[in-house]
């Protein structure tokens, strides 16, 4: 089904609004900047947004549907990023042709992308229905993204179960919107709470960061212009770990040096 040597990575969460598309966009740019030929496939064709986060919304002419139908070549449908030519976007389809795509179609598109790219990131739609089944058909490995909230973790657990039954391997975890202060005060699920419950290796932690909103406003992912914001650093580190580099993970509650952080650590120490 897929070209040898190319990695097909599904980015999914189950719950909507936890940061799948933002991660796909930032990770795509970060990988491209590190010299990896990267394609981002927007599998969410009902409500597609990856084009918007990448600032490519005005440049889409064709989609994977036209490629599969033979009415255009893959090159015509791929939207190359101007500043980062290693990155190309392919929307799976448009909302008007909802019933059109099937899991086999996604596999065919994935195989075609494999001829030109080292990594294909597949932005999965929220939910666990047909859109998910389409997206997972094209994937070999997965990144599950969640936030330290009960609803997001519960949905992530559901998705992990489905990924396991589809034989997707490895599955790694990204914990998004971490608030170190709340974690230190034990008013937010800790990193180990989430990794213990979901039993997945942690690929990265992304702190809550206002710059993410600023960057989506502009259609310029944080990883594009080398900003030093905490989220940008996190996304770059995720890209490096994904490529096999050893980059240490920071424990957000141990990062602070102030009195508050020290007190927080004291309060979470197990006494018996």
């Amino acid at each position: 089904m897929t070209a040898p040597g190319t990695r097909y990575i599904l980015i999914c969460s189950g719950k909507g609004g936890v940061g799948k598309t933002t991660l796909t966009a930032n990770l795509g740019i970060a990988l491209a900047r590190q010299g990896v030929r990267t394609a981002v496939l927007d599998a969410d064709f009902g409500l597609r947004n990856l084009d918007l986060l990448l600032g490519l919304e005005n440049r889409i002419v064709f989609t994977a549907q036209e490629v599969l139908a033979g009415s255009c070549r893959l090159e015509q449908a791929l939207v190359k990023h101007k500043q980062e030519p290693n990155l190309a976007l392919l929307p799976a389809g448009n909302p008007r042709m909802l019933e059109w795509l099937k899991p086999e179609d996604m596999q065919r598109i994935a195989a075609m992308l494999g001829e030109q790219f080292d990594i294909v990131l597949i932005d999965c739609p929220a939910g666990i229905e047909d859109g998910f089944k389409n997206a997972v058909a094209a994937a070999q490995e997965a990144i599950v993204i969640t936030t330290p909230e009960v609803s997001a973790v519960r949905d992530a657990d559901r998705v992990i179960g489905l990924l396991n039954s589809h034989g997707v391997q490895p599955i790694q975890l990204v914990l998004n919107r971490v608030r170190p202060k709340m974690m230190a005060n034990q008013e937010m699920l800790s990193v180990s709470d989430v990794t213990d419950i979901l039993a997945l290796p942690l690929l990265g932690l992304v702190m809550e960061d206002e710059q993410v909103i600023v960057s989506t406003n502009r259609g310029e992912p944080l990883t594009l212009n080398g900003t030093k914001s905490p989220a940008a650093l996190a996304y770059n580190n995720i890209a490096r770990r994904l490529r096999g580099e050893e980059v240490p993970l920071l424990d957000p509650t141990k990062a602070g040096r102030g009195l508050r952080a020290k007190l927080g650590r004291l309060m979470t120490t197990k006494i018996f």
Partner: protein
Amino acid sequence: MTLRDFIDKLLGRQPASANVARERLQLVLAHDRSDLNPELLEQMRREILEVVSRYVEIDLDEGDVSLETEDRVTALVANLPIKRARPLAEPGTAADADPASASSAPAGDGAIATA
């Protein structure tokens, strides 16, 4: 227990919400993963107790059947304190099931022999 939990308890405050979140999640995930709703679990619990009490006399008030989850593996855990073994037509089977209760149960006790 952490220092924070201890102070909360001392002052009679609500525990930190992260603990509540963790406990609620663990419970709901145990059910999600086993695809058992609480009603079905309750029915299964009753049936298990029924079967077990055919062989041994169990303490129904102390008995507990629940789902526990660790590392994505969900286990059905039954904790059924045995008062005594019921005398059976084949005494070997019941006595082997729980040596502790077998020793406390006098042999041939009672007249409720299963036909």
